[in-house]
């Protein structure tokens, strides 16, 4: 066979093989596109979760469960079924979330229930960098995707979250205190090994060893109580004032605070 013929034959075979690859890829393509869509949504939710944890947990709780008196839960049934009707929003819930996060809220829509982080205006800051906030639009869309991912759980379609921490023993003050710690959203900012992993406020592991000597004249018990009720009275070095909500004295009952202090005093 002459070289020209050989090259024409080999070239033809290669073209046929290439076409076969393209056809196989083409057959798989619709499935790949569908899979990619699902994976992309998953990655968006992952990213949204990280944005949520750094920006939103201070008011909406470590797992979006809401903080009584401050900001609503974003994972209860009412949020997914009634909220759009309450505010008269015509679009989808995801768009509603994007819109609210983007522009924030100047005044509370439910002032008797939620007053916002500091009780002043705006109750929810504007988050979009277009309006002076810290988040880009793609981050806001990611947060909305993350919150929408609560829907099956909120509507009771999937098993409830399994709490990692051993269930609190409600019969002792320490056990009830641990429950208060989680419900009031303390874990969003404070780390206690095995219970919470917040990274905004000081780590509370081994709190007892330090609490008694922080402020002269205050015992560990008094110091912890003061820190909860008047967070600005003493601020641990390296952290800034005004981050911790100052309204726990109003939000929590006296019993709850007593239980919480009892629980925190177990952190040797």
């Amino acid at each position, binding site marked *: 066979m002459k070289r020209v013929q050989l090259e024409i034959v*080999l070239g033809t075979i290669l*073209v046929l093989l290439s076409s076969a690859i393209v056809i196989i890829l083409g057959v798989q393509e619709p499935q790949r596109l569908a899979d990619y869509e699902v994976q*992309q949504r998953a990655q968006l939710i992952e990213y949204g*979760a990280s944005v949520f944890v750094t920006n939103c947990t201070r008011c909406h709780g470590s797992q979006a469960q809401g903080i009584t008196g401050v900001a609503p839960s974003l994972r209860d049934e009412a949020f997914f079924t009634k909220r759009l009707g309450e505010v008269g929003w015509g679009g989808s819930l995801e768009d509603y979330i994007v819109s609210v996060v983007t522009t924030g809220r100047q005044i509370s829509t439910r002032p008797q229930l939620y007053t916002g982080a500091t009780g002043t205006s705006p109750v929810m800051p504007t988050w979009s960098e277009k309006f002076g906030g810290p988040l880009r639009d*793609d981050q806001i869309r990611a947060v909305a995707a993350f919150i929408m*991912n609560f829907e099956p759980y909120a509507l009771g379609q999937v098993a409830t979250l*399994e709490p*990692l921490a051993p269930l609190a023993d409600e019969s002792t003050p320490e056990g009830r205190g641990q429950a208060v710690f989680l419900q009031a959203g303390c874990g969003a900012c404070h780390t206690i090994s095995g219970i919470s*992993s917040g990274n905004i406020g000081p780590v509370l592991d081994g709190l007892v060893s330090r609490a008694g000597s922080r402020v002269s004249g205050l015992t560990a018990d008094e110091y912890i109580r003061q820190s909860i009720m008047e967070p600005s009275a003493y601020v641990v070095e390296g952290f800034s004032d005004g981050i911790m909500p100052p309204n726990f004295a109003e939000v929590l009952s006296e019993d709850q605070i007593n239980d919480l202090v009892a629980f925190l005093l177990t952190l040797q």
Partner: protein
Amino acid sequence: MLNALRRRLNIPPRDQWRATIAKIIDDRVRIITAGLSIRELRAVMRGDPPTEKPNPRYKVITTSFIAHLRPRYYPQASTWFTHTYRLGFFTTFLFIVEVITGVVLMVYYIPFPDQAYESIKVIESNVFFGELLRDLHRLGAEGMVIFSWLHLLRTYFTGSYKGPRTFTWLTGVFLLLITAWLSFTGYLLPWDQLAYWAVTVGTSITDSGPVVGPALNLLMRGAPDIGTGGLLRFYLQHVILFPLLAIAFISIHYYKVSREHSISLPAVVEETERTPEQKKEDNRRIDLIPDLLSHEVFLVSLGIFIMLVILYFRMFHSPLETHANPQATPLDTKAPWYFWWLQGLLKIDPASIIENLANPILGIVGIKLELSKLLNSKFIMGLIVPPTLIIILMAIPYIDRNPSRLARKRPFAIMWGIAWVFIVIALSFMGTPQFGIETPPATRIIQDLAPEEGEGALRAIPYDELVQGIYVVGQDYGPDLCPTLHYQPNPEADVDNVVVGCPHLTAVFNEFSEKLLKAEEEDLLPDLNAKITVEQFQWNLITVTPLVEWTDPETGKTKTYFHTYFLHQDRPTQP
């Protein structure tokens, strides 16, 4: 009456129909092939000699525009595979692949920071063959860089840059620079972290230049930071300015080869005694039609086939990291690999080298050199050295006055070439992000398990293996962290495949523990207290938090470093 009509319509008598139809077809074929009859075309396909005189195949070269750009023939010796390796051909081939895939990608891409990243996602998730196109474009770009470098090396080692090809060499160096700049400008377009920071680091080099440095930086970025203006500038350079420049320079470069001096003959043919038979064979004409053309068609089909095989078996995949974030620099910011040598160059500080060498000697006389204030290393290594290297590269034909092209008669040139290759490889190694940059051990260890961008062992743990718990370093858990776990990795396809325990999670935990305990032994992390917490966050979202606590040897204070990773059930799993 019928005959009158026949005459009128110019229809030949029945016995001439066959010949008439054959002539009509033949005329059409001659028009389409710019001069070849159907008989001639058949001969061409079979590699037979021409059927008519004068040779109609040469007529094609004068009548067809595309063919007239090509040479009529090459002497047989200059087409030896071991002489050219077809490197220039493949570079051009990849350029054409880039143009074709690039034009299609342009349809979907939006050069605007708010939408650029989103549009790449749309290409990957919503465009039929979108991922294939993007991968082809990226593979072609990296291939073009490789082939243009190899082409340069081949030309250097065969001494083909010497007269009369000195100017062709110069245009070739320009093409190398154009290729590099095309790939660099394309790098920014996906607008992910990788792109944003590679280009931020790259353009920041100009900032240290004298007088015009900051202005040049501003000109490239369009603003102090790369934003809308910067992206648009890079985009327009990538899709208009530099493709046009590349076409212009390729034309000049190729015209020189095809019309002026042809491909160089191998040095053995030109400079050694050849027997008359060899001489005859060396000078045998390899005609454009059919020999060169059939060979080129074959090479093109081979090139396309190889690219498709690489992509089919996922040996190459264009990365897409998270959205560009000007507020957060990823830990291991790196340039594209073909610029690592430049990054390696930037890690050298000539001032401190000279100081370290000179000061012990000058110290005797009581003088202490302080060059670092005078010499900005970024300025020297980023703005002085690379342009100097490029100028030297351009000037090689004029520096090297040795008339011989035989390797054994130019040992210095060959030695230089080899040394140069090794220097570039060494510099590239120095340019990798891990080289010569100290990262705190805890950060390094966690970063190695789960890089800020990209996959890593931690993110590769299958969702089913993420059993909630706190896994403390130093504690003995036995051979597996979750011995009671059973799961099916792929229940739809393979029901019988059941994994016992959590091998991936265990492997990650063991690696984490080993590295940390070693660092503790080396006193880098005294009083180590570390754990990995796995927690359910949403019904289909789990957090994995490696945490390291240690006492800082310098200050005696307790330090904590941790990072929370969110892993969704549907996240892409890579094998």
